[in-house]
């Protein structure tokens, strides 16, 4: 298992290199000039040229890429063009907000999806099943920004159940912090919940027709124990993979959700940085998110051995 983990960590290097390469060139494909954005429309061309030279943005792209990569390897993500602060410092400040948001969203989506998927499988091809699956289709097809705006309108503005603007970190005041996070987290969770519920349903159906389920019933176990202990644990493997992949969706969704709910997280920072063509900030954030994503998926793969003991990592 340790060997496997080390090997997997080594695989991170090429993956992250490709991400770095793509994000570096992709941000530069966006029309617009960061110096122009920074200095405003009235700036004279000489000043722009001077600033560009000072920041090294006048050099050939491959050289810029090399220099950036070199410093990233040393743990230096560069300095934000917009705020003139180290990118890593901004990431460090905003990351806790995003990880709390996505973890909460993950929690909500599992709480919603696992029971829904199980019930749909148990009541397969009945009204209950069709109803749940209809909900999941809505969940998959509703765009996050729309859901966010709508829930903000209904639950914060109209009903006043949740604050509509502002943010209190959950680690400073848990309950108040939670009220600011519930709405964005639920919004973010719905899409993933829908996908995971469908996956849970189909893998439960797969498992429920197997002989060891009949065997479990023949032992005299109650239906709850048959479903949760004997069926769900086996059905959870494929679901777990989906969860790992969907976590990427959560990180992507966080960019939109944080913007809609104005949460000071990494996602909103990426959004603002893209608007400002703040190359180092965008590159740093995306690379960091990619790192989180691959780490989460490693954890998911290691958890697999718990749900399916036949898998051994050697």
């Amino acid at each position, binding site marked *: 298992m340790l060997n496997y983990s080390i090997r997997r960590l080594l695989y991170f290097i090429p993956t992250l290199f490709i991400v770095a390469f793509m994000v570096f060139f992709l941000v530069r494909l966006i029309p617009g000039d960061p110096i122009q954005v920074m200095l405003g429309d009235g700036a004279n061309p000489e000043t722009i040229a001077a600033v560009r030279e000072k920041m090294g943005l006048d050099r050939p792209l491959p050289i810029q890429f090399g220099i950036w990569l070199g410093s990233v390897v040393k743990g230096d993500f560069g300095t934000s063009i917009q705020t003139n602060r180290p990118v890593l410092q901004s990431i460090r400040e905003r990351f806790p907000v995003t990880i709390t948001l996505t973890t909460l969203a993950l929690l909500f989506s599992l709480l919603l999806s696992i029971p829904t998927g199980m019930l749909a499988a148990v009541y397969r091809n009945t009204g209950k099943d069709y109803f749940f699956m209809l909900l999941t289709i809505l969940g998959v097809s509703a765009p996050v920004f729309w859901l966010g705006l709508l829930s903000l309108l209904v639950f914060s503005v109209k009903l006043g159940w949740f604050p509509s603007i502002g943010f209190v970190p959950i680690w400073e005041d848990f309950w108040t912090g939670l009220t600011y996070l519930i709405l964005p987290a639920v919004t973010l969770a719905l899409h993933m919940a829908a996908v995971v519920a469908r996956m849970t349903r189909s893998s439960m159906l797969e498992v429920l027709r*197997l*002989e*060891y389920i*009949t*065997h*479990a*019933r*023949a*032992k*005299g*176990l*109650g239906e709850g124990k048959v479903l949760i202990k*004997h069926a769900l*644990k*086996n059905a959870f493997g494929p679901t777990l993979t989906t969860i790992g992949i969907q976590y990427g969706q959560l990180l992507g969704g966080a960019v939109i959700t944080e913007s809609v709910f104005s949460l000071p997280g990494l996602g909103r920072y990426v959004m603002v940085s893209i608007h400002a063509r703040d190359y180092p900030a965008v590159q740093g954030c995306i690379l960091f998110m990619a790192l989180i994503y691959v780490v989460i998926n490693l954890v998911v793969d290691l958890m697999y051995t718990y*749900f*399916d*003991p*036949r898998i051994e990592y050697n």
Partner: protein
Amino acid sequence: MDNILDIQDLHTFFYTPEGTAKAVNGVSLSLKPGEILGLVGESGCGKSVTNLSVLRLISDPPGKIVSGKISLDGQDLLQLPKRDMRKIRGDRISMIFQEPMISLNPAYTIGNQLMEALLTHRKISRAEAVNRVVEMLQMVEIPSAEKRLKDYPHHLSGGMRQRVMIAEAMLLRPQVLLADEPTTALDVTIQAQVLELMYKLTEEFDTAIILVTHNLGIVAESAQRVAVMYTGRVIEEAPVKDLFESPRHPYTNGLLRSVPVPDQNRPAGREPLYEIEGIVPNLFDLPSGCSFHPRCSRIKDICRHEQPPEVEVGTNHMARCWLYA
């Protein structure tokens, strides 16, 4: 002696979009304590569904036990509330499945699954439960039983897994064991050992067995009585010796003749092995009258129109055929 298990006129149907499959269509069987009843027939004749019906494990929908009576020691199982039925499963009636590779849960250790079977029905301490489980594993001759508790099913061979299944089924000393093709999936060399173990334990605990199989050899060796099923009905039932020596129903006769007999001295250019003509009819669309009539070599006119009655053709020997009515 009173019967431990009495199945009377059991009907189990499956309602599907293609129609109603009458998988078990009026089966009556009885079992005395410690007796071994062989239940034979081709696939799809309803023998497994009969077994599952006894434990009320027919998945509903699409299946349903439509009518009949199943009494265990005088108590009608079909009338029991679900809770009470669960208390009987695994305790007074247990089951062994065909495929040990898929009948044990791959996600839990052997120990976990055996302990679960025991602790579901008995209020005993864990330590005591471990002792009983280990003792049982030793009885089915699993080497270093204590260590095996922590093994997962995939660590064991097919034969070992089936021993584990037997250990589990016999853990609570049931009155009835439903064995559904218990050795079909095993290597021939291991089949005999596993059966031997099963009989040793059931004899010790006075457990009666319904042995579902399509292997007539196994039945000839171990069962006291045999019931032959065809399209959801028992068409012949007799003590094992009578059935093998003088089968009365043309289907039973064909079944016996289609088994190769090694020591029969047949000349070169010998007759090919007997084959019952035609195929098993579709359960959705059974022939009128006797459902065997399209394949029968001794057909009479009445066979086409009317269901044959049960006929007493010898001592404890029943055949459902117009030839004897």
